[in-house]
């Protein structure tokens, strides 16, 4: 008898729990937001939104939905692909997910993200979103995410080092090499000095060199992808980069860019290729050096053609809603608040990123203006659902390490990488 009672209560509790879990109202938000309940889980990437912005969005959200709890979890970039795969495979993925713009196509094509084509007009500034970010959100003409912010790279340099060595920001790649060599000579007594600090796996910074000479990662024709890093123009770009790295950099040829800001802040580096927001990391009191604030300058990565700039990789992030989310309307509303004009302005002014709309590009002033301008001459990686696999398989970093360490000649390394890229982009492993 007791057993039966216990069993009955277990079933009752289970039913109640299931009902509660489903009770977050998956249908459109009811007329009275105050009646909405539940917990909204948001995954943002490390370093994307300053804490003040997240707190501001959550405060606005709480005002509108007093009974909904928002749980913002900060994720690390390192192994995010693995985490996203497992999260989307589970039955309760996060409701709002920040995705690097190169990752969206993979998850959208696999059905992990909600199709928000019909809701586009409900997001602020959707008519003036940055084209490249909108493209990254669009798969088979459907919209799967909201552009969040962009980032483009330029060269951050030490003005005091330049003045002391009697050099000025160059306007061509040859000029960059000459300036670098003069800086190396001026600092020849410092065995740790790098005129241009370039860690070997830093593939985002290698792309401008490839693109500037007319090369590319891959091209598509007749629905098939073909890796093109082995083309003569791509190889020309990589030869220029390799020459520069061997003469100007003492950074780890097998390392990545994660520590470059700290290395820069230690005072043995004259130039790094970096995002605008990295100025904040270099001058931060924790891990950086605040006294460098007045000594930093920035200039665009020059082209091999004098007076022009090289196209840069337009990085950035988008915000999507999981197909399996039980709070899709709330999730979309949270995204709308974060990407609304009020918080976007703060993202640009406090966070130092490029906002998601062309209507705010005027916000870039001072050093930031250099990065904003760089975004105007930008390119993107192949827009394929399989691109993320190329990234996760480390094809480009591996190729660069082999070139910089001299393990392989440029023609061999680029041929191997091109073959692998062709295979992965066409759906193979």
């Amino acid at each position, binding site marked *: 008898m007791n057993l039966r009672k216990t069993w009955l209560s277990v079933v009752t509790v289970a039913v109640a729990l299931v009902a509660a879990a489903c009770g977050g109202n998956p249908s459109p938000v009811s007329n009275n937001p105050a009646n909405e309940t539940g917990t909204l889980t948001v995954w943002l990437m490390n370093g994307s939104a300053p804490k003040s912005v997240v707190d501001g969005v959550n405060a606005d959200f709480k005002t509108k939905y007093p009974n909904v709890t928002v749980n913002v979890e900060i994720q690390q970039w390192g192994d995010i692909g693995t985490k996203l795969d497992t999260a989307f495979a589970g039955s309760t993925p996060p409701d709002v997910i920040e995705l690097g713009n190169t990752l969206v196509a*993979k998850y959208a094509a*696999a059905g992990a993200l909600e199709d928000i084509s019909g809701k586009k007009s409900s997001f602020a500034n959707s008519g003036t979103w940055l084209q490249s970010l909108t493209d990254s959100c669009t798969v088979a003409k459907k919209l799967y995410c909201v552009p969040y912010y962009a980032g483009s790279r330029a060269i951050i340099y030490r003005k005091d080092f330049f003045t002391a060595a009697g050099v000025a920001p160059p306007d061509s790649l040859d000029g960059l090499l000459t300036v670098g060599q003069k800086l190396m000579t001026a600092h020849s007594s410092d065995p740790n000095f790098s005129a241009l600090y370039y860690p070997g796996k830093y593939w985002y910074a290698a792309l401008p060199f490839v693109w500037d000479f007319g090369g590319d990662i891959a091209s598509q024709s007749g629905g098939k992808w073909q890796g093109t890093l082995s083309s003569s123009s791509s190889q020309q770009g990589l030869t220029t980069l390799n020459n520069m790295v061997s003469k100007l950099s003492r950074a780890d040829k097998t390392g990545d860019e994660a520590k470059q800001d700290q290395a820069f802040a230690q005072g043995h580096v004259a130039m790094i290729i970096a995002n605008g927001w990295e100025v904040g990391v270099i001058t931060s009191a924790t891990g950086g050096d605040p006294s460098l604030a007045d000594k930093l300058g920035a200039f665009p990565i020059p082209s091999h053609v004098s007076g022009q700039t090289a196209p840069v990789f337009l990085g950035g992030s988008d915000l999507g809603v999981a197909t399996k989310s039980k709070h899709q309307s709330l999730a979309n509303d949270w995204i709308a608040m974060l990407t609304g004009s009020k918080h976007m302005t703060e993202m640009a002014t406090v966070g130092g990123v490029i906002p998601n709309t062309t209507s705010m590009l005027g916000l870039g002033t001072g050093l930031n203006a250099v990065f904003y301008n760089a975004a105007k001459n930008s390119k993107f990686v192949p827009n394929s659902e399989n691109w993320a696999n190329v990234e996760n398989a480390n094809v480009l970093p591996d190729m660069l390490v082999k070139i910089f360490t001299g393990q392989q000649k440029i023609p061999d390394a680029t041929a191997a990488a091109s073959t692998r890229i062709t295979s992965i982009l066409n759906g193979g*492993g």
Partner: protein
Amino acid sequence: MGVAVSAPDLEPGPLMLRRRAWLRSNLLPYALISPSVAVIGGILAFPLGMLVWLSLQHYGLRELIAHQGRWVGLDNYRSIVVDPLFHQVIVRSLLFTFACVVLTLVLSTLLSLLLLKVRRVVRVLVMSALVFVWATPVIVSVDIWQWMFDYEFGVMNYLLTQLHVGNFIHHNWFDNPVQGLGVLVLVVVWGAIPFVTITLFAGLLQVPSDVIDAAHVDGADAWQRFWFVTAPILKPIFLIVTCLSTIWDFGVFNQIYVMLNARPSSDYFTIAIYSYRESFGVTQYGLGASIAVVMVIVLVVVTFFYVRETVKVAEIA
């Protein structure tokens, strides 16, 4: 069945007793072992079966999200067999394992013999150090090793330069994969020594001192005493630790993955890293599973010899 039931009625006594005895001697052992078999089946056979099942399917991200794979038979195995990278990975994994196991056993044996000879205080100190190494979580210790071998700030480069071994300023240990794998062997062996040393030391304590003394009296030198007296007695322990070390070192993952910032280049792929990369890196879970199955098969083949010897020794004992 009817006959079986009615049989005791016709002929009670001896037959029934005999049958009971037969049942007891033949079925009882199975009944007693069945709980263990069920547990082992649950925690080993089931996942292994799932792995094999997964390896026979195309299982990409789309399938992962829909929880529904597409049957492809042996296609995954066919594609890894023709993959030149896979061949390199197998050879590298076997050489890496061999180097790790041999070094671990030699150094651990020397250490355990040393422990027998030293004073009690020293023995306690060494044992404490070994247990400390053993108790340190792998991720933490590998992080420290990574810092020590760091290209820019590593204490190893500083130390070697100060000791005039050569100019190691900005020496990149992972530039050359052979050297890099050498460092990784060092890290793996360092972590493996405590368990093997303590196990061997426990075995050495069981070697009767009178047998050693007798050999000594008969004129055997130190090497002969070890090789002809101590080693044969320790054989079962050697077999077990060799077998376990082979299994652990063949499947090594954490040390390589953490040491190389979660982005090891293909020169550093061992079979576990390769399987992980194919599964989670390129979201080909079926392919990754087939590599893992091959890994299990290679391990079974490699460890078969040790297991057979262990069973033989156990039977003799």
